[in-house]
Every structure is written in C-alpha cells, then in structure tokens.
C-alpha cells in the first residue's frame, strides 16, 4: 500500500513537472523531450493500475511514433533550434487564468463527488489470475467481440488519416 502510494507520488510529480515544462520551455526540441517524460510517466501509471497492455501500447505508439512525428514536424518546418524567445503568444495571462479556473472547478467537483472512494485492492489475487481476467487476453477478446464495430471504424479512420496526410503533404 505504501509502496503504491509512493510510486504514484513520484510518477505524478514527474508527469506534472514534465507537462509544465512542455508548455513553458523556450526550446522546441526540449518540449518534445519533456513530452516523452510525461508520456513515460503516464505509461508507468497504467502499469500501476494493472493495465499493462495499455502501458505497452502507450510506450510504443505515443513515444515511439507520435513523438518521432513531432520531431519530424520540428525539422520540416525549420523551427528555430536552440532557445527561441518567441514561442508564446500574447494571451499567456488570460490562458493561465482560464486554466487555473478550470482546474479549480474540476478539482472541487472531483473532491466533492468522489471524496474518499478507494480503488479495489488487487493484492489478494495472484498475478496469473489478474492477467487471466483483465489482462491482454480479455482485452483482445473484448476488442474483437463486443467492440468489433468501433474497431473497424477506427481502422477506416486510420486509413482516411493516412491517405489524407499523404495527399496534404506531398509535393506535386
């Protein structure tokens, strides 16, 4: 119990500090690196929540593909490498106020409604039983039985995005 809470504290701190640096740093490539920190911490949090397949997918797809895509975008748009003082626009003050206001409302509603609800303890089940009931196998079964239609729709969406991105970005 203590170990879980300590792990959560470390990962949450890493995620929040990384996210703050993503939105405030003056260096575009550093922002991508801090995004890697955030995505990695969130992947580790998924492991803490006994969702290993989502954690592995997060690491593979987000860090392995999407961040690489961002770095390609930085390179192809000739963003100024190194320190660039002009990365924020004039609305920083109002944006900060809006974000704090939103955080206040969300925080109040969450604390008010969910109070002290505890997550169910998985400590009294063996790892084999946990992965047999909510691991990769049941997730795969669910995707291909209950959620088959969303799966096919997402496949078509990926195809449309692929074709669309190529058509938009090609030189002719």
């Amino acid at each position, binding site marked *: 119990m203590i170990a879980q809470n300590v792990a959560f504290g470390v990962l949450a701190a890493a995620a929040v500090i990384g996210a703050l640096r993503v*939105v405030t740093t003056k260096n575009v490539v550093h922002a991508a690196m801090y995004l890697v920190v955030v995505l990695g911490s969130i992947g580790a949090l998924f492991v803490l929540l006994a969702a290993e397949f*989502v954690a592995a997918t997060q690491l593979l797809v987000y860090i392995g593909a999407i961040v690489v895509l961002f770095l390609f975008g930085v390179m192809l748009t000739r963003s100024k490498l190194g320190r660039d003082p002009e990365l924020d626009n004039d609305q920083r003050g109002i944006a900060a106020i809006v974000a704090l206001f*939103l955080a206040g409302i969300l925080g109040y509603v969450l604390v008010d409604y969910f109070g002290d609800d505890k997550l169910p303890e998985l400590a009294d089940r063996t790892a084999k039983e946990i992965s047999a009931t909510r691991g990769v196998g049941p997730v795969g079964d669910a995707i291909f039985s209950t959620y088959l239609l969303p799966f096919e729709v997402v496949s078509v969406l990926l195809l449309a995005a692929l074709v669309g991105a190529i058509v938009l970005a090609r030189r002719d």
Partner: protein
Amino acid sequence: MLLNQFLLLGAVLFCIGVYGVLARKNGVLVLMSIELILNSVNINLVAFGMMGGDEAAVTGQVFALFIITVAAAEVGVGLAIVLLIYRNRTSVDLDEVAEMKG
C-alpha cells in the same frame, strides 16, 4: 490508493494542456499540448475502469486503446496541415494565420 488521486492528476494535466493550447504560438507545440489533454483523459478512463469489476477494467482499457489510436491519426493529419502552412508562408506562427479575422 484513492480514485481521486488519479482523477485529480488527470484534471491537472488537462488544465496544463489547455494552457498550452491557448498560449503557444508554434503549431507543433499546440499539437503537443493537445496530446497532453488526450493523455489525461486516458488516465481517467483506466482509473474509472479499475473501480468496477473485471469487465469494467477491460472496457476502460479498450477505450484508452481507441483514444491512443485516434490521437495518432489526429497528430498525423495535424502535422500535415502545419507542414502546408509552413510551405505557404515559411513560418509556423499561428498568430499570422488570421485571414478570416474581422
């Protein structure tokens, strides 16, 4: 572990993402902030999934997987659009893309 610690972390990351979308001028950085928002939603879904039984946990994970997939597609198309903006104007400054204003 409380449920609220995951939900509050999700809320904080969401608000940091909102600040990034509103305050950043570079198109690529706006897309990075949108990724922060989508990740906060994923934490929420998986945490809520764990609150129920086994079937709810599986449902939460399936939802999170679909969101990761859609985010990947969106980043692909978004970066293609940012690339086009760069090709037409030689700058990715979103403040200059104001032709429909006024």
